[in-house]
């Protein structure tokens, strides 16, 4: 063997054998495996190279994999230890690609039960990777023996493999619980850890059993630090789920673990304690002081772990973390930038209003030294701080503008600009200074996309300031100095001023006239377009073509136009047939925010537009056989759950609204492993006026798979008020009992069954698409002439605050709040909520809700809509 090593070194010159390997050559070489006498000295390097290729990400076809797999089985003839072990690795790697892998079962079983201890553990793991549910029963006896084997490696391998197999055959593994129980008493630390993992996995659905397990093990003092960590996690989960639990013993166990000799366990316990929902300040104190100690550790990982946990705690218990402020400030200069950034953001979270100035000074020196990604994290923390302490906006704004002037990449600059924009939107006092900083920034900004965005913002916000004229200079400077895309944006921005500020109109027209001589087509076109509209002096034209831009979803518009040009109709293109742009819901924004501090994210592909989800649904529905032609999809509502999440069948409904129809999409999940459902259909019992038009049952619903059934209903034609109602729903299906391990039905005969679902509400919001109006007031005034108006007064006694009322009204009506009227200023007793949207069929709706707080909330609701019935509907359903 040693001579083989030397040979290889001489022949191949150390490692060069792995340079520029080709899949085909290796597969060719692998034919050597079939030689009558196996030569380990030749075969081992070939197998190593093959595995190296697979680990590099090379993909084999099923045929290639099967061929090489079969050749590999010949190597079992050799007694060479390394070769045999490499064969196991090869088996594991190929088992998911190749066919008929069970062929090696008997060879592996022989190795697993043989005398060679060096083979047995690895053979068990290889065997379990090729085993399926039926084969498992054949080796069950051996596995049970292996779990309690005296050799710890064998026992560990068997336990770990069992855990892998629980996905495949949970019921079989459950029968091994006694063996696992025995293994937990093992002297070997890893066996103990693996046994606890398996035991918990088997029992985790049975809370009583888990409680008993925890009670027993916490007294036993496990040897393995890994096992103790696992036990802490189990205990913490129990404590968090069961409020009323008699918990003193468990809490004591956690506190005891804070004094464990292994740092791993101490950290795990501290982390668990601070994250428990029920933790009181008395329990928190020792955990925090442990973390504080870790902050001063020499090991970067330990400091990192501590500061990351403190960062999380800063959200829930900011006061507890203030004790560590001094240690955290020391970490700002840490050589590991992740640690320093986490420390900064933690300090920013816990900082009091008075300490903001001092902190910002400290950050200023720090920021110049770190890379862009970390700067972005810091900027985000500053944004949170600005929202928390609005009065400090001038300090923070100065700081941000200083950061803007420094060198930095697009992402970093964009995040600063975003932060300034957020501060402007949130805090009216900061608007003028914020805009001034941004104006200064675009004077010298090398990122086109950012300059365009800021110009757009200036166009929207500038006209509303006290002195709009001062922004014109900044904007016109761009026209003189920049590239075409920025010039075009500047032209649009100026037009906004022209439309909103009559006294500036004349000057703007002069500037636009100059722009019409521009060398770029787009700039010239825009200038001509705007100067024409502005010369008409017509408010409604301004509103529709300058201030409010196109509301439709761009991908849908593209699709509709393509279809239109391909079809041969003489009809003009109807803009109303294009679905509107869905406004991202706050949930998606929150999802975006839910990122731990200090996490770096590499720039991936830009997320597909929100509306794509809707386009996908529309495509799926249009692919249903013989579906009615309903026009284009108008709106898709949020998912509604029609069952509790832990029932036999899990059903969710998504409502898709069309002009005259509604498609109910039912996503059903079968959670019973011994049942196969067929012909699953949802029978709805619609409210009066509705008519069920078509039903599309789901043909087959096997265990743990989601199937979809559709029901198409037609809206009541005459009575719009009747469109808001409640549907009863029952799921009907044919049940076939089946074998849980294979999923094959026992008999061909099934029986009918049904399952009651919760009622389905069809609300007003399902039929209304949100539309954002940049200049709501103008639209409102204009609507006075042409639209129908309805007005009514309501007393909303269930709400105790204006915020609550606003939130509920927005949600109920499904309209978009405009001009940031969804934010109620603190301490006020009256509020006006401005809403806009479009009703199905393309009827525009504007709503003004005047709210007053006095023992409940009183609301005066004024609705203006293009259609009288729609206005009627809204006033009728509210209340």
């Amino acid at each position, binding site marked *: 063997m*040693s001579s083989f090593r030397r040979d290889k070194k001489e022949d191949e010159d150390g490692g060069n054998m792995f340079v520029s390997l080709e899949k085909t050559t290796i597969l060719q070489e692998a034919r050597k495996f079939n030689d009558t006498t196996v030569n380990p000295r030749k075969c081992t390097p070939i197998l190593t190279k093959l595995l190296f290729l697979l680990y590099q990400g090379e993909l084999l076809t099923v045929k290639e994999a099967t061929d090489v797999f079969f050749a590999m089985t010949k190597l079992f003839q050799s007694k060479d230890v390394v070769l045999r072990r490499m064969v196991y*690795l090869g088996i594991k790697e190929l088992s998911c690609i190749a066919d008929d892998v069970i062929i090696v079962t008997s060879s592996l079983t022989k190795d697993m039960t043989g005398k060679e201890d060096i083979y047995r553990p*690895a053979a068990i793991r290889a065997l379990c990777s090729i085993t399926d549910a039926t084969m498992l029963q054949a080796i069950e006896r051996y596995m049970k023996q292996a779990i309690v084997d005296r050799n710890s490696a064998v026992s560990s391998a068997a336990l770990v493999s069992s855990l892998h197999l629980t996905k495949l055959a949970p019921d079989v593994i459950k029968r091994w619980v006694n063996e696992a129980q025995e293994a937990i008493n093992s002297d070997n630390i890893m066996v103990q*850890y693996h046994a606890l993992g398996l035991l918990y996995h088997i029992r985790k659905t049975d809370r009583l059993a888990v409680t008993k397990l925890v009670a027993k093990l916490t007294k036993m003092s496990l040897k393995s630090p890994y096992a103790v960590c696992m036990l802490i996690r189990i205990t913490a989960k129990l404590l968090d789920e069961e409020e009323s639990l008699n918990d003193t013993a468990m809490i004591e166990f956690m506190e005891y673990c804070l004094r464990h000799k292994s740092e791993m366990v101490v950290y795990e316990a501290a982390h668990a304690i601070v994250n428990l929902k029920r933790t009181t300040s008395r329990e928190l104190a020792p955990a925090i002081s442990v973390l504080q100690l870790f902050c001063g550790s020499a090991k970067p990982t330990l400091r990192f772990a501590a500061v990351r946990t403190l960062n999380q705690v800063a959200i829930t218990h900011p006061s507890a973390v203030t004790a560590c402020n001094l240690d955290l400030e020391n970490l700002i200069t840490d050589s*590991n930038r992740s640690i320093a950034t986490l420390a900064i953001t933690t300090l920013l979270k816990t900082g009091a209003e008075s300490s903001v100035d001092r902190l910002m000074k400290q950050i200023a020196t720090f920021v110049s030294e770190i890379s862009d990604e970390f700067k972005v994290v810091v900027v985000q923390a500053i944004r949170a701080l600005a929202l928390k302490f609005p009065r400090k906006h001038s300090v923070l704004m100065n700081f941000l503008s200083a950061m803007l002037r420094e060198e930095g990449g697009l992402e970093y600059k964009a995040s600063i600009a975003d932060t300034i924009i957020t501060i402007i939107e949130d805090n009216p006092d900061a608007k003028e200074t914020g805009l001034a900083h941004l104006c200064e920034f675009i004077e010298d900004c090398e990122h086109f996309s950012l300059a365009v965005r800021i110009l757009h913002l200036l166009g929207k916000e500038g006209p509303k300031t006290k002195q709009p004229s001062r922004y014109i200079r900044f904007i016109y400077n761009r026209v003189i100095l920049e590239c075409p895309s920025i010039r075009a944006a500047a032209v649009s921005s100026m037009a906004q001023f022209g439309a909103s500020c009559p006294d500036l109109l004349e000057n703007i027209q002069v500037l636009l006239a100059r722009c019409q001589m521009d060398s770029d087509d787009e700039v010239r076109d825009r200038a001509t377009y705007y100067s024409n509209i502005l010369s008409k002096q017509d408010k409604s034209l301004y509103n529709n073509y300058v201030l409010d831009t196109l509301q439709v979803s761009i991908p849908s518009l593209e699709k509709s136009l393509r279809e239109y040009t391909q079809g041969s109709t003489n009809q003009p293109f109807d803009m109303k047939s294009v679905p509107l742009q869905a406004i991202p819901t706050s949930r998606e924004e929150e999802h975006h925010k839910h990122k731990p501090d200090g*996490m770096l994210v590499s720039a991936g592909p830009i997320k597909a537009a929100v509306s794509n989800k809707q386009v996908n649904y529309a495509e799926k529905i249009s692919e249903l056989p013989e579906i009615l032609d309903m026009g284009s999809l108008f709106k898709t509502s949020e998912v509604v759950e029609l069952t509790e999440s832990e029932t036999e069948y899990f059903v969710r409904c998504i409502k898709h609204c069309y002009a005259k129809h509604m498609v109910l999409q039912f996503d059903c999940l079968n959670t019973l492993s011994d049942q196969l459902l067929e012909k699953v259909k949802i029978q709805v019992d619609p409210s009066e006026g509705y008519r069920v038009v078509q039903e599309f049952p789901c043909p087959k619903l096997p265990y743990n798979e989601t199937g979809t059934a559709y029901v198409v209903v037609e809206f009541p034609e005459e009575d719009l008020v009747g469109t808001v109602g409640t549907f009863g729903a029952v799921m009907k299906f044919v049940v076939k009992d089946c074998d849980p391990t294979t999923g094959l039905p026992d008999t061909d005969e099934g029986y009918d069954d049904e399952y009651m679902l919760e009622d389905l509400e069809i609300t007003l919001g399902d039929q209304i698409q949100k539309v954002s109006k940049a200049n709501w007031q103008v639209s409102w005034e204009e609507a006075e002439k042409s639209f129908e108006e309805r007005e009514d007064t309501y007393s909303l006694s269930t709400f105790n605050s204006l915020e609550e009322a606003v939130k509920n009204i927005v949600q109920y009506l499904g309209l978009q709040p405009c001009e940031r009227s969804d934010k109620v200023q603190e301490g006020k007793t009256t509020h006006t909520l401005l809403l806009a949207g479009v009703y199905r069929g393309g009827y525009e709706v504007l709503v003004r809700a005047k709210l007053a707080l006095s023992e409940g909330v009183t609301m005066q609701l004024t609705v203006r809509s293009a259609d009288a019935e729609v206005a009627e509907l809204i006033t009728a359903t509210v209340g």
Partner: protein
Amino acid sequence: MEGSLLEPTLYTVKGILILDNDGQRILARYYAKNIFPTPKEQKAFEKNLFNKTHRANAEIIMLDGLTCVYRSNVDLFFYVMGSSQENELILMSVLNCLYDTVSQILRKNVERRGVLDYLDIIMLAIDEICDGGIILDADPSSVVSRVALRGEDIPLSEQTVAQVFQSAKEQLKWSLLK
């Protein structure tokens, strides 16, 4: 704050990685199917990870939703990845085990060339450290004793008693067979 308590599971390690000093992959094992399912995504992640870590000797970094602990020597970079909520010290113990195991196998000459020379043994060692994301063993000498390394390949001083015993037994067996 939801979900900051750790789920009790043995599936701790999301990936183990050995790169050379050009950022090229020598060995990579990804254990969770849902993260970086395709080789292309893996390579992109590795490139990014290498760029962020090869100069800063900082031991730990959070990248693309993963906590990565790392250690380098001469022309090699060793990484162990886990979820961003994972106990970093557990990951560190795995990394230390990986490094010390490789170091023992290569008799302290932890270099790219050595790793490639003993690639088969190192593959076996990684397989003994982590099985499908579960930490199988975190004690380097125990891992070394489990991989099929012949007695003469490690110096006597670094062998455990069991290993010496094992090799003695084997030699005896061979001499009897002759």
